[in-house]
């Protein structure tokens, strides 16, 4: 196991600047998820760790060693590919043992080792099958086994679960989490699925347009998203964002927008400074919204748009007139009865504010 470091790495493909300038470091034993929409540069970053792409400038270090121009085979890394990249003409035993074969291990020895790993992954009795003769979930575990069969400094995952159906994905995710706890491996994991990143990562790097917007533990990203982009990307459904006009009246923050009635938020110096720009975005997570009682303050009012009962929870979405929608996630298995006009309320402590540039304003008392 080893650390991974990017020092001012940039990457262009012809005229397209995929990564302008990116620096980060991943400590030994960390499980880092690169999270972002497609085209944000997360896969390119991963492929530069693997050596499948060469940076246009900057340095890539693995275990403190400069590997920027090293061939993948000399980096002591493992990688799981999105399409699994299993060899269709080899059975599972040969597929899993292939990295050992190229290292010159004897056939019985490498097959024994492959079997060992396969047993851990519960595919030990499929060793004579071809990849086309096993299910998608089993293929995924086979590609994982091939990555685990030899000792590596860093384990790289390129959206390894995205080809699985929802149920298998949950199962595989849990297994990866277990494996990480067991092995304590250094891993870099690319995904566009925020739930996967939240569940697996010790730290998440949220990327947008070739930049890391926030690099923090999952709970930090959830509680204190650095920008509206992060807020909108993490959480299911994502954080509700309501642009509003701000004013400080009698030492309290007032926010005005269509359907929004917020008159008494606490004010800090940073908030006061941000309010100078007048425009502020209010962020509230759906799970922090509830159907308002008559005497509640901090209320958002709108027309009912959708009322989805999901079993243990319900999603109630309202539409503010000529403005955006707001979704509340309410944890109850009772059917929620609402009128045509719905009032949702929230507590002041659950409010996240963003300034006019979209950056988060540190909360009161922070």
């Amino acid at each position, binding site marked *: 196991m080893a650390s991974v470091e990017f020092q001012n790495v940039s990457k262009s493909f012809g005229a397209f600047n995929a990564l302008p300038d990116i620096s980060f470091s991943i400590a030994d034993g960390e499980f880092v998820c690169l999270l972002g929409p497609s085209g944000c540069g997360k896969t390119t970053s991963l492929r530069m760790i693997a050596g499948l792409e060469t940076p246009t400038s900057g340095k890539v270090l693995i275990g403190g060693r400069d590997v920027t121009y090293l061939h993948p*085979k000399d*980096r002591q890394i493992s*990688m799981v590919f999105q399409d699994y990249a299993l*060899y269709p003409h080899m059975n599972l035993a040969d597929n899993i043992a*292939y990295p050992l074969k*190229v290292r010159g291990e004897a056939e019985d020895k490498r097959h024994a080792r492959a079997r060992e790993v396969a047993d851990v992954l519960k595919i030990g009795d499929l060793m004579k099958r071809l990849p086309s003769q096993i299910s998608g979930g089993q293929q995924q575990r086979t590609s994982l086994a091939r990555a685990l069969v030899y000792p590596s400094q860093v384990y790289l995952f390129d959206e390894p679960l995205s080809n699985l159906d929802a149920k298998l994905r949950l199962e595989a995710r849990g297994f990866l989490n277990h494996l990480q706890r067991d092995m304590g491996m250094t891993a870099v994991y690319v995904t566009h699925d925020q739930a996967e990143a939240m569940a697996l990562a010790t730290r998440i790097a949220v990327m947008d347009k070739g930049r890391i917007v926030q690099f923090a533990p999952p709970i930090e990203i959830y509680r204190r998203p650095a920008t509206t982009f992060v807020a909108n990307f993490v959480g299911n459904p994502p954080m509700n964002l309501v642009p509003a006009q701000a004013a400080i009246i009698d030492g309290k923050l007032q926010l005005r927008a269509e359907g929004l009635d917020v008159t008494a938020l606490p004010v800090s110096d940073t908030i006061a400074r941000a309010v100078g720009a007048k425009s502020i975005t209010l962020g509230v997570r759906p799970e922090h919204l509830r159907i308002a009682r008559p005497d509640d303050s901090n209320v958002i009012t709108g027309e009912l748009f959708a009322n989805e009962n999901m079993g243990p929870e319900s999603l109630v979405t309202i539409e503010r007139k000529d403005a955006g929608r707001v979704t509340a996630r309410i944890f109850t298995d009772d059917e929620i009865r609402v009128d045509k006009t719905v009032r949702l309320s929230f507590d002041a402590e659950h409010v996240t504010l963003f300034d006019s540039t979209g950056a988060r304003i540190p909360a009161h008392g922070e």
Partner: protein
Amino acid sequence: MKKFSLLSTRAGALFLAPATALVGVFVIIPFFWVIFVSFTNRTLLGRTALDPDFVGLQNYFALFNPATFFARGQFGFSLILTIQFVLLSALIGQALLGLILSWLSQTVSPSIKSFLQTTVIAAWILPEVVIGFAWFAFLDYDNGTLNMIMRGLGLPPGDWLLQQPFWVIVFFNTWRGAAFSMMLFNSAFQSIPPSYFQAADVAGATSWQKLRDIALPLIRGHVVTDLILITMWTFNVFTPFLLTNGGPSYRTELLSIYTYRIAFKDFEFGKGAAVGVVIMLINLAFALVYLRLAHKKPVEAE
């Protein structure tokens, strides 16, 4: 279920008629005519031109006569020469060179790759007569390019077409045909998902290991197709005639050239037709193997 048809049977037959007539006149009838002629002693001139005798298998016995079979200028000599020519110029030359070029071009930058492909394909699309003449000029003793290079390097010039005629046509045919194999292997390699090679890279495989363990097993069908096609083409190729005329003293007289000499220089139509029938049978054997392999389903696991 009613079968949907675009045209009535009669209209369809009408449209097919011209092609059928042409194929019949120029392919089917000559085909049977050659088989018929091979059982006669028909010649261009003399009594047997007008009134050939039916001689049974005599022409075939003459071809396979053990006393003269291996003598220069005889059928057996040409057959063995052709087999050597196919092995060296098609299987080893074209296929191996094409495979190596194609594999190496997978790793170079796209611009170098397209330049390489253009160059190699240029050798393939030029008309036979043009390249025949170009090679003739290249190998000329007094003013040939090769000898100019040799002299420039301080090496003794050679009269290649006289001294090494067989190797000249082997090199010529390799040069001429490697492009086809290269292009075929190129497209075969491109049909393999890049992640297969990337996974092997990450796992620590060398280029040779990737070729042996991943690329070759996955393009096995393409390799078989390529080998069969170039074997058949090389077996029937006539272009070396432009360089050596089959000589000197029959040393480059491949079967196709032998047939040409017997039928159209010695004007022994009967014997020439017999050679043609034997060549056709050999090609038929290749074609059957090819069709057999082409229709074979991909291997299933035991």
